[in-house]
């Protein structure tokens, strides 16, 4: 059946207009402005605030200056930290744990399932600042809730945010975001016809075989979607700043915090814009890889 448009072109365009205006004003224009600024030495104060000069690729070259790329507090080091942060908290943590939880609670009803789901959703919808303060209190070195508990059992009580800052931030982010993938995977599992799993059951498949042969292939597109979203969100998230401020000594300075420090603490808008552009290109890369995965899978299905 051939699809026909419901609206004529001019009417359709009219409906698009309000959203179009917002997208142009708040996304497209800033994007091009940032792209332009990234080639200048614009700052907040001083001579270059009024008369920024075109500096070509200087900002980018300084970002990728090999002699100090991986030094603490530089862009390369920040990228490495972000890589670990994304890998452990987004892919291993949120996606994997979310799938495990969804699978565990799949077809189980009762108060435990309801409680866990509710807690996970609450963790997900609470405002960043509130959550960050709660975790700050929870992880506090002396007198924090976690250390009180550990101490009660005679376990070591490190000063989490000072001794294990990256681990703390990763665990915090897993806790914060697992609900999303859990919900996504729960609905994906719920959409598998029960007879598929019952057939596997009757023909003699073990739990592991059911997961590998039936469940994972059936929810593959959901897994890809979840990975795209979680990776991008985690890559761009700024919330760790609320817990550690990027420190101590840049140990938790993910790229979003690095950008912030460059652009709004040192007020070097030109350099900050260059970092922003690089982040955007990396994001684009992630999205393209995932989208091509999704597309090859559609073709084979």
């Amino acid at each position, binding site marked *: 059946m051939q699809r026909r448009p419901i609206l004529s072109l001019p009417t359709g365009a009219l409906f698009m207009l309000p959203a179009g205006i917002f997208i142009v004003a708040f996304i497209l224009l800033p994007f091009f402005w940032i792209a332009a600024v990234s080639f200048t030495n614009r700052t907040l104060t001083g001579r270059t605030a009024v008369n920024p000069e075109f500096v070509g690729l200087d900002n980018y070259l300084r970002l990728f200056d090999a002699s100090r790329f991986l030094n603490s507090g530089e862009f390369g080091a920040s990228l490495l930290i972000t890589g670990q942060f994304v890998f452990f908290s987004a892919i291993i943590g949120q996606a994997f744990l979310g799938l495990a939880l969804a699978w565990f609670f799949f077809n189980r009803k009762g108060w435990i399932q309801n409680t866990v789901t509710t807690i996970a959703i609450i963790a997900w919808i609470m405002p960043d600042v509130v959550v960050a303060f709660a975790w700050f209190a929870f992880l506090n070195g002396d007198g924090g809730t976690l250390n009180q508990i550990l101490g009660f059992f005679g376990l070591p009580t490190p000063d989490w945010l000072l001794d294990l800052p990256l681990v703390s931030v990763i665990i915090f982010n897993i806790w914060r975001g697992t609900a999303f993938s859990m919900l996504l995977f729960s609905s994906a599992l719920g959409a598998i016809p029960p*007879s598929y799993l019952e057939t596997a059951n*009757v023909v*003699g*498949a073990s739990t592991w075989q059911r997961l590998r*042969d039936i469940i994972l292939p059936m929810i593959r597109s959901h897994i890809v979607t979840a990975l795209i979203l979680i990776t991008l969100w985690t890559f761009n998230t700024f919330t760790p700043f609320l817990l550690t401020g990027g420190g101590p000594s840049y140990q938790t300075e993910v790229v979003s915090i690095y950008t912030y420090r460059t652009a709004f603490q040192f007020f070097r808008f030109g350099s900050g814009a260059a970092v922003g552009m690089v982040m955007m290109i990396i994001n684009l890369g992630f999205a393209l890889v995932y989208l091509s995965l999704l597309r090859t899978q559609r073709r084979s299905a």
Partner: protein
Amino acid sequence: MASVTFHDVEKAFGTVKAVDGVNFTITEGEFVCLLGPSGCGKTTTLRLIAGLEKATGGNIQIGDLDVTHLAAKDRDIGMVFQDYALYPHMTIGENIGYPLKVRNVPTDARATRIGEVAKNLQIDKLLERRPGEISGGQQQRTSVARAVVHEPQVFLFDEPLSNLDAKLRLEARSFLKHLQREVGVTAVYVTHDQAEAMALADRIAVMNEGRIVQMAPPLEVYHRPGTTFVANFLGSPPMNLLPGKVALDGEPRFVGEAFTIPMQSHVETAVRQHLSDGAQVTVGIRPEHLDLSQDPVSGGFQGPLYALETLGPESLVTLKVGDELLTVRIFSDDAPQLADTVHAAFDPEKLHVFRENGERIPVE
């Protein structure tokens, strides 16, 4: 191949008993249909055999093995679901071979066996395709192939024909009958379609409200329905059931609101043995055992025409007898000429008599 035995099996969901004290033995190689309206517990019974539901009472045996507490995957069963449950991400060949794969059968042996089964089911040309690319009938055969490929002890069908269109359904029905005869495996088949049950089964178990009402060969169920429920469920259209009373004063007869049927002597003997004068009964007569008559018939029925349905090889004439409807099935490819008042006669040998509670009185 194995027998299946139920001893007082119960399955309760909360306070609702879906299966309520079911007993039966299905012998080796037998084809049994569980027949009943939706919600009668037939699918739950099937799922209890498969191990997809856990019995809340009684015990279940497959062969000599008590499987009541055995998981589905350890029961050695082949099952065909209503929606076929073919995996969209696997080819037809992979779907058929899946039960062998989970049993770690080597790839070569697996391919040989898949080829064998697929050839037998005439789907050997489709092995490389995916379920979305083949017809409903072929999907159904694939599902059957997957259920037989590992030579299970028992074969279970959950309304496997209900997703096929009418023409294909008849074809698939003959095919299943042929296949079961050839393979000779014990089979349990759930359906709500009485024609399917009649055509396929060695024995039919008619279920209602979680219990088996009657379990007997198809013709036995047809000729001697154990209750009014069974009488009403089998046959198309179902048996005419009319309320009446036993009258033993003078000439023994059944008296209804708008009819009087004299009792044959053997009926009278049975009625005198089981019922007393004035007892409430239901008399039953199948539409195909009634015939139209030009003139009034003594001991027959008469009433105004209610509906005439011509079906080609046969016609259904419904008349109103008092407040009840009576359907007559005429085997003629011409539409009958009908007056305003229709008379119907029947073979008194074919009369069924049921107690007030619905139980059959054995009149033969």
